[in-house]
């Protein structure tokens, strides 16, 4: 009845099965029951998503390790991921699943000697293990995935819809502004003061100084500042005053030269344009501050314009300008620097007033239409906020999903 070889075999089998579970000095390590790998949806074709259920042996000193290989038969030696077992839970899974996105090609390339070799798209194989101290227990299941690139990131669909809707709104209102050019814009006192400030510079026979922020042409605030510069340059050319533009970025400087030159030509004063007045003051933040402060105290401009995106230099520049007795008009969407401009400048355009300024000054249908469309956009956001909050208060949460950032 009792067969000795069978008993021996059974004992050995039970021992080897139980070994991982009671490895590491009796610490129980139970590997996850499942492990899956799949192409990360809506990505650039490099990502692989890994997902597995939480193991009962998760603890602060337990880790998950995922090994990756290009070949199913090759040894799995390259670590693709190593995380603490109590981290990287899948969203909304109530701590029951782990989720990670990795770039296997990048990981394998870094670990390989031929790291610059361009390879064809291929399948990757993954092995999951749970480890604690020196013991490691692998899951029995091997997962594989072939990353594919996608044309469309569906997680950003709402972003796309918002952008298209906004573009449609802008085009509609530009058309509307062309038909009825007297669209109402509320009074922005900082902009009304520009004429007064330029008139003062003309009377005093002193220059007006225009200071861009520190950002390059990729920044929306710099683009808005350059638009305003064009309008100011036009008035300056009419008044026959000197305009100095101190730049920190050579590309912004070149764009400013073009814009100012065009404004002078538009005003019928191309002869008054001096290219050297739009200059590169310095290439770094604080040398730029030193240079512009020096210009302020030596040339004593009657008017200073600070328009664009500013950082720590804002207070030093505006304070120096205030000490020289200049009229100062600032416009920035850098909310950390706005307090300094408000305390040291005569007029400050806050945030979006900077974007509205060029429409306000020029009254061009293109800009007026954009401004009106922005207002409609803000109206839609206010409605969405109020309605969304009321619905959430009433326990209806679907609005959150409509505006979820992908």
């Amino acid at each position, binding site marked *: 009845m009792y067969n000795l070889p069978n008993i021996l075999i059974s004992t050995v089998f039970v021992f080897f099965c139980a070994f991982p579970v009671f490895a590491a000095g009796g610490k129980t390590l139970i590997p996850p029951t499942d492990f899956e790998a799949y192409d990360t949806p809506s990505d650039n074709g490099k990502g692989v998503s890994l997902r597995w259920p939480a193991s009962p042996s998760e603890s602060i000193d337990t880790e998950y390790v995922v090994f990756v290989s290009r070949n199913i038969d090759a040894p799995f030696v390259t670590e693709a991921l190593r995380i603490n077992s109590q981290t990287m839970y899948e969203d909304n899974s109530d701590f029951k699943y782990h989720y990670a996105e990795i770039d296997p090609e990048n990981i394998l390339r870094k670990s390989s000697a031929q790291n*610059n070799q361009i390879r064809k798209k291929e399948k990757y194989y993954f092995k999951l293990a749970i480890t604690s101290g020196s013991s490691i227990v692998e899951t029995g299941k091997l997962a594989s995935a072939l990353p594919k690139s996608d044309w469309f990131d569906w997680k*950003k669909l*709402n*972003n796309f819809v*918002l*952008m298209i809707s*906004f573009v449609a709104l802008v085009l509609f209102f530009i058309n509307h502004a062309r038909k009825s050019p007297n*669209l*109402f814009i*509320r009074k*922005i006192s900082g902009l009304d003061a520009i004429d007064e400030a330029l008139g003062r510079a003309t009377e005093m026979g002193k220059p007006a100084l225009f200071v861009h922020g520190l950002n*390059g*042409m*990729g920044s*929306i605030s710099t*683009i808005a500042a350059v638009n305003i510069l064009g309008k100011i340059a036009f008035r300056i050319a009419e008044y026959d005053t000197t305009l100095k533009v101190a730049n920190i970025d050579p*590309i912004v400087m*070149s*764009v400013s030269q*073009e814009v100012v030159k065009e404004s002078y030509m538009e005003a019928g004063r191309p002869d008054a344009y001096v290219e050297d007045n739009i200059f590169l*003051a*310095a*290439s*770094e933040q604080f*040398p730029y501050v*030193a240079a512009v*402060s*020096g210009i302020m*105290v*030596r040339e004593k401009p009657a008017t200073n314009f600070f328009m664009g995106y500013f950082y*720590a230099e804002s207070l030093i520049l505006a304070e120096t300008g205030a000490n020289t007795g200049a009229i100062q008009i600032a416009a920035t969407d850098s*909310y*950390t620097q*706005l*307090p*300094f401009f408000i*305390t040291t400048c005569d007029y400050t355009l*806050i945030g*979006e*007033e900077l974007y*509205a300024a060029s429409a*306000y000054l020029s009254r061009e249908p293109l800009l007026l239409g954009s*401004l009106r469309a922005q*207002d409609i956009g*803000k*109206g839609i*956001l*206010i409605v*969405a*906020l*109020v309605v*969304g*909050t009321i619905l*959430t*208060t009433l326990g209806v*949460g679907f609005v*959150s999903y409509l*505006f979820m*950032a*992908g």
Partner: protein
Amino acid sequence: MKKSRDVYILFSTLILFFLVNIFYLSMGWLDFWGKGLGIVTGAAFTLAMYSFLYKDNPVFKIAENLFVGVAMGYWIIITWFNILKPDVFETILVPIFKETGTPPQFTILIPTLLGMFMLLRFSKKLAWMSRWSFAFIVGLGSGITIPNFIHAFILKQLTFDSLIAPSIPVSINNFLVLLGVVSVLIYFFFSVEHKGVVGGISIIGVWFLMIAFGASFGYTVMARMSLLIGRIQFLIRDWLGLIQ
């Protein structure tokens, strides 16, 4: 009279600075060939920059021009080593003339050409070509910024919290956040005159803005004070050795 007073102040400060340094060096408290030279230079430029607080002066002008020049030189070196050398020189020119194991990446020629067009601004006849580069930069900048702007400043901000939260302070906080956002947004309405209800709500928005700016002002001033403390520490600890 006033000008001569400034000259006296300038020269006495300079003489005092030199005497202090000579005294420290002769006493061996500053090691000239070790860190001493750097400390003395740092102290000189710190004081030169602070001299602007009194008024514009030749010492400040020297420091200002050196600062601008050094920054420009540094920027040129950074441009060469971080951009031109790895992205242009080593990816196109080196592989053409030398066996490097990687073929020349001719696609880099497109941005290189766009960059070279910028230099054509020196030629009156060809300056128009630089506009292509500007158009590319502005277009690319807008194209990248606008979707990111919608993502970061609209979608990421549009989260809806219940006004009836488990605790009263959280409910009040949620209500204040909603009121603040809506009123500030109404303040930035340009198509409507700020009168009546709109005017009233926009005034609430201005209050929210000013409270936020006040907090930001205080916070930043504290950060600036720590910068000042750092400089003063450098002067009295590293340079003069008055504190340890």
